[in-house]
């Protein structure tokens, strides 16, 4: 069992698209996969044509157990289930604050799913508050989409500094370039520079493509409605890298 967060402290970087496509590709390999949509905007939930509704909302969510378990919906694809988002998740931060051991609640909520699923992917909202602590405490790996722009790289540095300060294992944080425009000279230069600066940058990137935006129209993973497109192949490459670096070989020090 592996848990993976698709996370960024900057918005609009392609988190949800990555989460939806990676979870679909994971399920296609036969791994029982659960995608948790933690974003109150519920885009991932929308992509799978599922109603954004949790039983008893955030209240039920933070309580964990049966209510959360019963909220899970099967997607249209084998081996892939979704824990839908709910608009009330916008209060998740505040709800965690009020609790004891407030930084480790999410880990506890996900516990019952660890038996049933081989892979749990979290689609996270933009945050660097207590929800971020919860996410980093709950997962084995974090994958950060990075647009090759100065601001995006700057926020990534902030994240790594935050992790170092709070003693989250930085070597379990990986990044990949997202929304890359290969015609832009600056994108190319930044990618080369950043690959040298950080350790965990995957050798695979997602270009800026209209096909990916069309997911909103088709409400399906790219590989379903355009299996032979560049977009689909890019996600397949990214998934291969994720598998290589995070899922196999199985690291014995996991399952903390």
């Amino acid at each position: 069992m592996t848990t993976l967060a698709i996370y960024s402290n900057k918005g609009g970087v392609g988190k949800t698209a990555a989460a939806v496509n990676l979870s679909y590709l994971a399920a296609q390999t036969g791994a029982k996969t659960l995608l948790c949509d933690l974003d109150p905007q519920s885009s991932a939930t929308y992509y799978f044509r599922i109603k954004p509704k949790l039983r008893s909302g955030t209240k039920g969510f933070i309580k964990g157990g049966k209510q959360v378990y019963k909220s899970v919906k099967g997607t249209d694809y084998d081996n892939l289930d979704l824990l839908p988002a709910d608009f009330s998740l916008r209060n998740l931060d505040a709800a965690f604050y009020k609790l004891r051991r407030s930084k480790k609640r999410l880990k506890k909520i996900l516990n019952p799913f660890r038996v049933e699923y081989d892979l749990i992917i979290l689609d996270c909202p933009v945050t660097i508050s207590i929800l971020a602590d919860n996410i980093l405490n709950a997962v084995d790996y974090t994958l950060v989409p990075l647009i090759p722009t100065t601001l995006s790289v700057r926020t990534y540095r902030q994240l790594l500094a935050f992790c170092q300060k709070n003693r989250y294992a930085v070597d379990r944080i990986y990044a990949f370039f997202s929304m890359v425009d290969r015609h832009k000279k600056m994108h190319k230069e930044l990618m080369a520079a950043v690959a040298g600066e950080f350790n965990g940058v995957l050798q695979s990137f997602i270009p800026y493509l209209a096909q990916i935006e069309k997911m909103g129209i088709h409400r399906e993973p790219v590989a379903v409605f355009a299996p032979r497109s560049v977009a689909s192949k890019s996600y397949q490459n990214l998934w291969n890298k994720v598998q290589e670096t995070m899922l196999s070989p199985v690291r014995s020090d996991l399952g903390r």
Partner: protein
Amino acid sequence: MLKNLQYKLPDGYDEKQFMRKLADQYPIKKEPTISERFAIYDTFDWRLFNKSLVLYGCGHKLFLRKPAKSMSIHAIEITSVPVFIWDFPDGGLKRHLAPILRMRALLKLVEVYSRSRPYRVLNRDEKTVARLVYEDFRSSGSKNAPTLGAHLWLKPVKGYPKHSRILVKRLAEAGLTKSKEEDIYIKALELADKKPGSYSAKVNIQLDPDMRSDEAAKVILRFLLHVIRVNETNIEKDLDTEFVHDYRVAIRRTRSALGQIQYVFPAKTTDRFKKDFAFVGKLSNDLRDLDVYLLNEATYKAKLPPVLRDDIDPLFDHLRKKRSKAFQKVISGLKSKKYEKILKDWEALLNQPRQDDGAAPNAALPIIDLACKRIYKKYRSVVKAGNLILETAEDEMLHVLRIHCKKLRYLMEFFSSLFARKKINVLIAQLKKLQDNLGDFNDLCVQEEYLLNITKELPTTQRQLKKTLVAIGSLVGTLGRERQMVKDAFAETFTDFASPENKKLFQELFASQIQPGQAGTKKD
């Protein structure tokens, strides 16, 4: 876990019409039909079937599951279909099957062609809320092949129970009834005229206590002849070593029955076939010996110190060559006129109607009496021989005792249907323990001698030969130590078998019914 429901299709079920009607309530999306071919495997003696397992391949995958269950216990990728357990890739499936298949080859029993046509039932967001899958099975790929079975699956989607409940109602209204999951495997075999579990080398004979002894003997011998014939036809294919083995055991049992079920046939007949079957048995002696050495190759190697393990290879290469010659000898033996005549005459004898004139003295005796008498007598000789060994500790006597035990075992198996099953099985199990000890001792003696003698035959160059001889010497040493251990265990094993409790049970089952001067007492 959500359960998939299987539905039987009513006569005249019209899929198009049903889906059209359902489409009034739900948008339905038809998916492409999937055609697959499955091949089902088992050993000749149904080892997997007997353990309630189904092994089947589809594409580059191999699955193991329980009958009538759709969840597989193991699923692995394969490049080619394994025949023997040592062909399997290491892993869970291999570990699961190893103790079951042992040395037997997997045979492809039957092929099944499946077609499935999935329909997605959608809600207003065009999200799948349930699936309906029409599925049928045929015994060949052609469209006109007879259908082995067809049904409709309702596969609920997690989180949408309301829709599944509605669909259950709609299916019932359309006349579809829930069916238990039945295994297509059994049906496919039936159509291919194969009966699961139909072959077993174990003696499985039902006798009536009041039967005449000559008739009962014929029932037993006919069963053995059947085993001989079934295996005989497969020996030539050389699929695995056990066809020869089962064949030989049936020959040995036949010889034992001829000798032990005494005076039921005219003396001339008995004598002739005793000799004939001794000849038949000898035909495959060499082949079986070589098979055993080669089957044990890995075990022998494991007994050697690692530095010598490769040095023994010339020995096994030599044995393999000998084996292929021995095999040819058996094949020509089985095709010889003499062999054919023996078996033909034997078959004729077993099938000819009873002739009352010149009948043998025990021919008309109720079989229960003869069975009790023979078993009890044999039991006494086993105990007597065993006690003698405890006193004298002679190796030759161990061999004599082994033969006595074998005869007793065969008698008890032939006649087991005449006695309380639980009780006789307890005694057979006890006897088996003693036989295992004696068998191990004998095997080790024979192997030591064989290995020492074979060195003369090894056609290797001088240098290699020396190394091989060292390895063989080391192996013989190990076998000798093992033999001593087995011998040391004899006294205790035998004392267990000859225990007062077993003696009482033997008397109760077999001696209480023999009353002096009154041969015809019936079992109650």
